[in-house]
């Protein structure tokens, strides 16, 4: 009886608060002459987007198309970030357990420093490094033939396929910038470096904990069987460590994807940045925030499900 009473009170309270907020919102929307609903998505966006991969976009396209471009940009940086951060994190995590004093200490210092500084500060820092420390396009660094690194971003050649065969589309300096080839914008590079370096430090700790969780006896037994350090890691330690590593690794991937929304602070046109612009232009704040939340929730749930499946397979 008491149980039912408590729950009834909780639901009544929740409903009352929800009703109060919704009623206020409807009043305010009516007072401001904002029509709610998602019809605005079909209207012409009227703003340009700095970069759009895989999907042609111009200012004459609809808001919906702009949002899709933003979503693709989010996926682009998140996917690259997840791969690079995992590689970096695994290397640093193994480095922290190395027998080599220098490597061990440097890895530990890296993890300690990076984890205790906000990602946003790091993003601003890398953006400043690219803008201030890298040379202008005319004096671009050229580490490899055809690859140019400057404050305008990274330019590199891409293969160009024609009916007669393959040729290279190489970037060429024209005026103050490069033309041709493939281009990574400074914003994209900043975000990618920032996400990789930051998440890499967290992944390193997870990898380290995972390896430490494998009993010392397992390593000793493998070595006694005559396996080398590499083979021990590959065949004995990693398969066992992965079981410990995968669940927290999943949440780091999710964090990376959520953190990619900081793109808005440095001007990379990800989903959140595009929704922000859309809200400013249309005033459809509720719909905009709802879109952001729905998209990220869907991504979170999908990745959790995928990783749970993978984890179940490991066991």
């Amino acid at each position, binding site marked *: 009886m008491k149980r039912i009473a408590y729950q009834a009170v909780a639901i009544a309270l929740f409903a009352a608060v929800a009703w109060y907020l919704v009623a206020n919102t409807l009043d305010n929307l009516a007072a401001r002459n904002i029509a709610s609903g998602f019809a605005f998505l079909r209207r012409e966006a009227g703003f340009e987007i700095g970069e759009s991969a895989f999907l042609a976009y111009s200012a004459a396209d609809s808001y919906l198309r702009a949002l899709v471009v933003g979503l693709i940009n989010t996926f682009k940086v998140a996917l690259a970030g997840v791969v690079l951060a995992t590689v970096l994190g695994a290397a640093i995590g193994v480095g922290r357990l190395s027998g080599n004093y*220098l490597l061990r200490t440097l890895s530990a210092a890296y993890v300690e420093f990076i984890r205790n500084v906000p990602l*946003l*500060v790091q993003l601003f820092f890398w953006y400043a490094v690219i803008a201030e420390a890298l040379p202008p396009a005319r004096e671009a660094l050229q580490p490899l033939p055809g690859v140019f690194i400057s404050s305008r971003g990274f330019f590199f050649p891409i293969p160009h396929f024609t009916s007669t065969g393959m040729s290279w589309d190489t970037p060429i300096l024209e005026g103050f910038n490069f033309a041709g080839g493939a281009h990574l914008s400074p914003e994209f590079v900043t975000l990618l470096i920032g996400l990789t370096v930051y998440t890499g430090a967290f992944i390193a700790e997870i990898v380290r904990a995972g390896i430490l969780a494998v009993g010392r006896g397992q390593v000793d037994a493998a070595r006694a069987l005559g396996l080398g350090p590499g083979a021990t890691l590959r065949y004995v330690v990693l398969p066992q460590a992965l079981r410990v590593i995968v669940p927290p690794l999943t949440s780091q991937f999710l964090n990376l994807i959520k953190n990619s929304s900081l793109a808005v602070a440095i001007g990379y046109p990800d989903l959140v940045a595009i929704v922000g612009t859309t809200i400013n232009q249309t005033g459809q704040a509720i719909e905009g*925030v709802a879109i952001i939340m729905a998209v990220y929730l869907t991504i979170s749930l999908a990745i959790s499900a995928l990783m749970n499946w993978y984890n179940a397979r490991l066991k």
Partner: protein
Amino acid sequence: MNWVRKNLFSGWANTLLTVLIAVFLLKTVPALVHWAFLDAVWQPDPKACRAAHGACWGFVAEKYRFILFGTYPYEQHWRPAAAILILLVLYAFSAVRAFWSWWLALPWAAGLACIGVLMWGGVPGLPYVENELWGGLIVTLILATFGIACAFPLSILLALGRRSGLPAIQGLCVAYIELIRGVPLISVLFMASIMLPLFLPSGVSIDKLLRAQIALILFAAAYLAEVVRGGLQAIPKTQYEMADALGLSYFQKTLYVVLPQALRIAVPPLVNTFIGLFKDTSLVVIIGLFDLLATIKVSLNEPAWSGFGVEAYLFAALVYFVFCFAMSLYSRKLEQKTTYSPQS
């Protein structure tokens, strides 16, 4: 000698690694030392900075008052300074395990009230300063401290609700926690800064600082609730059963038996969550609030000092690092001290 051989030169792979790292360090460290110290400019003189090859720490020397206190009236800067001091004393006080009890809420309430009076003023001797003028480090500390202080009780309720066994309450708590944890903080901040005004009856308005504060509290509560839940789950079942056997009511059981133990166990992970939230306060710069990071960003807009972003953000990183690293060391020390293992 033995140590050197064992840690640096055991086997050819190890030796190769040592040599490679040593070469790398010899190439980079001297250049960095030259840039950061030997060739650096320490006087607040933009012209000397532009001429020099090294870092321009003169930027920090010139702007530190603005970075710490923002646009707070200059001759009143002692007030945010005193507020920062009160906060530091409260942090230190709460770090002592002997003081961990419900009574700790009293000095916190008193301290936070003092800070409110100091910052706003409006009493004799302290002219009123509206919070549009607050800025810098004190805003970062206020957002983090009030955020955690208000989110903590809320998170305990959420965690208890999630474990209550009452389907309706459990459902509401789970939905809230998972919804907030599934979306980026920036979307919660957007919601607070754009949508909160829509939620309130017309005529009622709350300012930017409070809106961001509410967003941070709502966000922090979901993350803290999961940590508290971890603590609740770590208590052996016999503790619950014994409390029931003694005939304690749910509230007595929770208040006197469960929470004191659960929260003690949860302190190290709680501190780690605090670190995350402290770092997360930096996001308020995106919705136009004037925290530590924003004052640094604005300082760079001045033409004389533009182009020294690397130095400026290194300084920002250092300030955040000092706070976060202190918390991280503390949490690690606690973990070592309290290898408290309840009997199972």
